[in-house]
């Protein structure tokens, strides 16, 4: 019965309201490049980090609330703006936005992580689906940034690092706002240098962080500096 009502409803609307098809806006891609220094990051490949060598096995993080600004004014705000960047999935490294806005804007503003409102909004699909492995099952909340790997150099052989940075409540909200100045030469490429991050992080005593709290909060503060608009 409900299906019949739906069809009837659609026919009525269709017969009495003219629908004008809207041409889709031209889109462009923002290329997220995960790097290790000047090189592209490759998972499960040896990476020199100070006096040691390590491999990164997992790197995933959320980018959300993407906005483009011109002269401090927001000229584009992405709807349903949640993207899971996954080093293992090349297609996730392309963010499709409006071309016109990218060309006219002088700054890109985004968030690393998921806002607190979304964290308390229940089950959501797409990149926010709990099957993505970025939601804590034992305690509500998204993992904003996930980095896992291990050392293979003799000095630290076998020592692993598991960094699940999350938490959305005060005083340890790990969500990070970032503003990136647009490069006039090449506006579509943003790099995230993981070497810079690991060189700082590996001096920490504890490289197993898997819950919200002070440690997660402190490490999350390092993330915005890693994002650059490539020249």
């Amino acid at each position: 019965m409900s299906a019949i009502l739906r069809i009837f409803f659609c026919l009525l609307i269709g017969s009495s309201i003219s629908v004008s098809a809207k041409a889709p806006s031209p889109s462009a891609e923002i290329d997220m490049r995960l790097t290790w220094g000047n090189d592209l990051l490759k998972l499960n490949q040896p990476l020199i980090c100070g006096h040691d060598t390590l491999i990164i096995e997992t790197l995933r993080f959320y980018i959300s609330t993407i906005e483009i600004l011109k002269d401090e004014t927001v000229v584009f705000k992405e709807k349903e703006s949640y993207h899971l960047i996954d080093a293992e999935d090349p297609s996730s490294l392309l963010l499709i936005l409006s071309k016109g806005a990218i060309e006219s804007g002088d700054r890109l503003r985004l968030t690393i992580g998921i806002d607190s409102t979304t964290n308390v909004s229940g089950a959501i699909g797409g990149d926010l689906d709990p099957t993505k492995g970025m939601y804590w099952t034992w305690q509500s909340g998204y993992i904003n940034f996930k980095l896992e790997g291990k050392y293979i150099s003799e000095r630290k052989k076998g020592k692993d690092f598991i960094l699940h940075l999350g938490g959305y409540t005060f005083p340890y909200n790990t969500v990070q706002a970032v503003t990136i100045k647009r490069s006039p030469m090449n506006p579509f490429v943003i790099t995230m240098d993981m070497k810079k991050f690991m060189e700082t992080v590996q001096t920490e005593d504890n490289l197993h962080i898997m819950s919200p709290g002070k440690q997660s909060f402190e490490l999350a503060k390092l993330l915005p500096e890693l994002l650059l608009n490539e020249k």
Partner: protein
Amino acid sequence: MKNKILVLIILSGLISAFRLKQELLFQTPMKWPKPAYDFSKNPLKKEKIELGRILFYDPLLSANSTISCASCHSPYTAFAHVDHSRSHGIHDRIGKRNAPALFNLAWQKSFMWDGAINHLDMQALAPISHPDEMGESISGVVKKLADSERYPTLFLKAFGDSAITGERILKTLSQFLLTLESYNSRYDSVKRGEKVFTVQEENGYRLFQKNCNSCHSEPLFTNLGVENNGLPVDGSLRDYGRILITSAASDSMKFKVPSLRNIEFTYPYMHDGRFKKLSQVLNHYSSGIEQSTTLSPQLKQGIQLDDKEKTDLIAFLLTLTDRSFLFHPNYGFPKALISEQKTTKSK
């Protein structure tokens, strides 16, 4: 113009019909607070509720297909776990806590004994993935359901396409859980003016209002918060409650205040099922409270009741049993799974 007016009239009619349909699937009793759950993000639909019910009773959701949600949340005991002090999961692994009763969840703002889960939709992730409970992963559940004969068709009926995602599994489970409403106990009949308490029950009710209502507030019989009710920590379990989630010293030994509805059937009591009888609970409140800085202020002096008062209070608590909820035909084992069992047995 006339056509557009006609469309508007029909549209309003359809919206009213939709709202009425939602009301039939879920009701807020008179004088109850507004539910905390945002139904607009997950509107109830009969096919989704039924799918959620089937998922709730299907052990396929566990790693070795032996444990379903209903293994710990039994319908005839208000969806509580009565035959163990602490619930057990796959491979007979025993957890640290007793599975709480499930009803009136639309009003809850947090879930689990420590309030770790902030939304009903996300609650199922915890038992599904815990190694001592169902030992699976939500990704694993998605794959198993997609590979099954039954579920693609059920998801098609519920959603209009057969895609199975983590979001859909969790939301359909929520839909079934939201329909578990209990508000037709003898107490409720008295409150509606349909019946009257006996003298003993009335006396018990007065004692309840004086001594228990601040935490077990009417009509939900919980203040929906966390409290330290003076339980000494179990030396072997070392379960300190909400502090394990927040790391805040002020949350030490605080646990969610459970609803007292259907308490006749939701034994054993407390987060670790340490008390088998209501008399033991009342004895704890009168002489077993452990003082601490986080103890609820209302319990500093304990709850001092003589034997007759305890008996009267228990008589009142028994009026909170809602048999229409306990034996509701829409909440029990689904026929779809019974048919499957018969087919399996005959092979």
